[in-house]
């Protein structure tokens, strides 16, 4: 499965959702109630934001008894970053190969 980059970018393109991720970075494994207490928002609105973050795999959840704990999951951000890093590497290698061919071709000619 490809990284669903659209979902990740969409999830990150909202300040409230970024502040939810910040809250988990400060303290991982919070419940919905704890996350709501840190933000001046209704439970329903926070639930919606968490749903989008979970669909983008930016948060992982664990059920413990009746509680659902939320964890910051930065893995998809690394998947996106590394994907482009390796593409840039490849392009740089292609450019070097072309340069080598050109120079060698000129020398030969």
């Amino acid at each position: 499965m490809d990284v669903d980059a659209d979902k990740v970018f969409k999830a990150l393109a909202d300040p409230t959702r970024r502040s939810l991720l910040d809250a988990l970075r400060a303290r991982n494994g919070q419940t919905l109630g704890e996350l709501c207490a840190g933000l001046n928002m209704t439970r329903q609105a926070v639930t919606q934001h968490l749903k989008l973050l979970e669909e983008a795999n930016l948060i992982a959840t664990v059920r413990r008894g009746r509680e659902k704990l939320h964890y910051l999951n930065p893995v998809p951000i690394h998947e996106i970053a590394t994907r482009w890093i390796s593409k840039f590497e490849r392009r740089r290698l292609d450019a070097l190969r072309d340069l080598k061919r050109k120079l060698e071709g000129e020398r030969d000619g």
Partner: protein
Amino acid sequence: MDKPEFVYVTYIASTPEAIWKAITQPEITGKYWYNVNVSESGWRPGTRWEHRDPAKDGPLRLVGKVVESDPPRRLVLTWAFPQDENDEAKQTRVTFDIEPFRGVVKLTVTHDRLEPDSDMLRGITHGWPIVLAGLKSMLETGKPLPKLW
């Protein structure tokens, strides 16, 4: 059960067996982790495992015990720096859960029993996302990522 401290999830287009091998076989871990996971016992519970530099007699990076092993679904390890091997208070714990999920495989890595503000805590929060992104890339494209750290 302790409250987990870090939970990392990645979805990989592969099989549970391939993911199990990628975690437990040194010749595969070396490709994306740049260190190798080694168990002399075939990951039998109660035995020692090592995470070490792939060079012959290369430095030992981490060491621990196999707590639970249920291939290809679940592997639980203790996880410590070599100098802390016999210090009970410094044994952290890592759980790999591998489960089929909507046609792909969900890999969950849970790391807990970490001391606040420890070198281990700093190391793993930096390291796990990179290792898991590398594992996914290797299994899906056949190519590991360049060494990024």
